[in-house]
């Protein structure tokens, strides 16, 4: 086990290096530059623009820039944003809590909906409940979040006027008022994200449970005269959830990565909106840092998923 872990970690290093090199080169080759806004402003002389490019090292060869970035990164220096001249790690840390709150809650909501619905639907396949659940699951993951988001805004903000559609990270209220306000403003984005995720989880849980429920040992358990409840919870779900756990673990990076589209619609200051505004402003250090952190998380959670899998299912051994 210890050996396995070590080997996996060692393998992760070159793959992360490879990812970072590809990301860096892609960004460097991509069109656009962070000083575009300066270009259209007649007040700013072109020499200033050129001086900034030189100062930020934009005119050096790509590989030199990459090595410079890598060395700085090793020292824990993530560079600074061209757009705000603030350190990138500060920017990212500022955004993490909001993203964790909104996307994390949405994941919990998704699981809370998908688990019972998926299990119940699989228990009686093709029953009315299963048909309804299936239909909703299909609708759920066929509708993109930008559509459901706008729909909810139209209904609950514009027509009914119940919920605000601009998310504020700096609510002025205190105490209970603060709690109420922060729940109120998060309802719509969490619902949109949660139900979208729930739809695909439901399908997954259902098929996983269906695979298990037909197995002989379940029949044996029933034949022993065990309570149906016990059969489902202890014998079926326990085994059926092994692949689901892996799926959820692999979804974890998105919890940190944020939801780009939904964050944009509701103006949630999360990682996703940081990434999109950095891309629009060609703010390379920020794009680089966010995507690289994301890559690290994907590698890390893949590892966690593998370990978890082995732990849950002793038939799998680490070699």
């Amino acid at each position, binding site marked *: 086990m210890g050996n396995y872990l070590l080997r996996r970690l060692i393998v992760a290093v070159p793959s992360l290096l490879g990812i970072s090199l590809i990301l860096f080169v892609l960004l460097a080759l991509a069109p656009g530059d962070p000083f575009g806004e300066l270009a259209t402003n007649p007040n700013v002389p072109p020499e200033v623009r050129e*001086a900034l490019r030189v100062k930020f090292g934009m005119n050096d060869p790509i590989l030199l820039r990459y090595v410079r970035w890598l060395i700085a990164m090793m020292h824990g220096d993530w560079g600074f944003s061209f757009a705000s*001249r603030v350190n990138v790690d500060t*920017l990212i840390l500022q955004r993490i809590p909001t993203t964790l709150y909104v996307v994390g809650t949405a994941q919990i909501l998704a699981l809370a909906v998908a688990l019972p619905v998926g299990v119940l639907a699989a228990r009686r396949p093709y029953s009315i409940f299963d048909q309804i659940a299936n239909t909703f699951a299909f609708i759920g993951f066929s509708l993109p979040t930008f559509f459901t988001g706008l729909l909810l805004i139209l209904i609950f903000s514009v027509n009914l006027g119940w919920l605000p559609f601009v998310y504020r990270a700096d609510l002025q209220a205190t105490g209970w008022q603060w709690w109420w306000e922060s729940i109120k403003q998060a309802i719509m984005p969490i619902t949109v994200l949660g139900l979208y995720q729930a739809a695909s989880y439901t399908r997954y849980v259902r098929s996983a449970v269906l695979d298990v429920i037909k197995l002989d040992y379940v029949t044996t358990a029933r034949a022993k005269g065990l309570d149906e409840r016990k059969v489902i919870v202890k014998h079926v779900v326990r085994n059926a959830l092994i692949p689901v756990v892996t799926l959820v673990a692999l979804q974890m990076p998105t919890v940190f990565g944020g939801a780009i589209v939904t964050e944009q619609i509701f103006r949630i200051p999360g990682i996703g909106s940081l990434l999109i505004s950095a891309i629009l402003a060609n703010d390379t250090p920020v794009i680089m840092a966010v995507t690289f952190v994301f890559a690290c998380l994907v590698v890390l959670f893949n590892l966690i998923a593998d370990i978890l899998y082995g732990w849950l299912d002793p038939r799998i051994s680490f070699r």
Partner: protein
Amino acid sequence: MNERDLRRQIADVKTGRLSRREFVQRMIAVGLTAPMAGAMLAHSGIAVAAEAIPYKPTKAGGGGPLKLLLWQAPTLLNPHFAVGTKDQEACRLFYEPLAGWDKEGNLVPILAAEIPSKENGGLAADGLSVIWKLKPGVKWHDGKPFTADDVVFNWEYANNPETSAVSIGSYKNVKAVEKIDDLTVKLIFPQPTPFWADAFVASFGCIIPKHLFGDYIGAKSREAPANLKPVGTGPYMFVDFKPGDTVAGKRFPDYHVPTQPYFDTVEIKGGGDAVSAARAVLQTGEYDYGYNLQVEDEILTKLEAGGQGKTELTLTGNIEYIGLNVTDPNVEVDGERASLKTKHPLFSDPEVRRAINLLIDRASVQKFIYGRAGVATPNFLNNPERYRSKNNSFEFSIEKANQILDAAGWKKGASGIREKDGKPLKFVFQTSINGPRQKNQAIIKQACQKAGIDVELKSVVASVFFSSDVANPDTYTHFYCDMQMYQTTMPQADPQFFMNQFTSWECATKENKWQGRNVCRWQNKDYDETYKLAQSELDPVKRAALFIKLNDLVVRDNYVLPEINRLNAIGVKNGMVLYKSGWDNDLAFIASWYRAS
């Protein structure tokens, strides 16, 4: 209109036969800016009493929160680094310049005690120096007094290339800034400078405190803690800043105007898109103000029906124009496309250019695309339709265009496309990706088709089109295309910077890495000489006449085809009274904003 006409009109203002306002409007009509008109009157000894900014509340505070929505989120709060409007706006909550520009284009003193003039001895007769008197009793948010040292420091700070301030353009033409006493500074220029109100005025003129930034001049500029926690003299004190998201402030109790500001707290929320920003102000009323609502007029009108707010439009000098390439983008000379050594095969025929100008249906573009937010114009220097210039006019006539082309020998071929000497009348027209622009392209293409011209449309993502990337051939400064359209902005009240975009030495070429501002690569000796004269002409009246001439020279050659003068639309919640000028930032006078009960 020449110099003599101008003098006569000024005399009329003196004797009272012409009102001041009317004079300003007439000047705007010939393509001058209101500030220039004001400068002419001031120079001729006509007192310029700046209109008082309306403000009803009798004491500061008590207004509750002020909520502003900028759909482009501010990313930094140092006015000397503030590239985009969004950042400049956010800086204006905390920082102030010596003076700002009002609606009529007059200078309004903010941190200055008075505006320098010949009468108060502020302006030197030779145009080589200006003396600013500072307002006494102004305090920084941390309680330290604001003095001449701070003003001198800002010049040193911005002028140091190592600081890499984007405001350097406003300061590098000042030779020295001297402190005369604690409340007086003298600016010395290397040559006679007619436009002296650049340094320390408006957005790049905002003053930062010496005691907090003094150690961070030059290469260390990025490390100053105050970059993120501004301490200024403005109406609001810093509370919180999350780059790309929110800026929060609270009322500064020691503000130098005792009855201002009205609101207790202020919050800028950023991010999202223009349409939903318009919705949050106009339809649901979640916010008090929404900036730069570049939304189609049709949608704005629909949202206004929500009854929570209304759209306000302000005149600006921003021009949506079409440029024809003077050089040939399809021929390579010395490894450079669109080299100055080439001539465009089609557009070098002036009759073709005249015909194309006739094929731009400006009235329809205004009516169907920009609505209230754009005014069709034949002039390059700002010109609202109400006071349309008598010097130039525009016309849309397919018939006339056809006649002109027929007469010039461009005959229709079998495919219905005109040609002459084996050259078909066919070209590529590019612009950035933006809803209204693509519609605009289609309107022009249609008209051209009817006149036997084949236009191929091309659109480039805005972040590429407007980038200064040397290696990318699709930027607007490379202009490797026959025709292109975009908006050129006039951020300053004085047109000197604005008009240098047609001087020969500004041509965008490989040599200057396409950094030049003259992207059509139009060259004209007369223009160059007139421009040089305008640069050093101290008499505002003569200078104004020179600018009119410059405008006419550009426009009449038909390489540059102005189309729409775009207005700035903002959303204002019902009850808000806000003073805003098209010649300065929206939030320049935020201290005077209030809510009528």
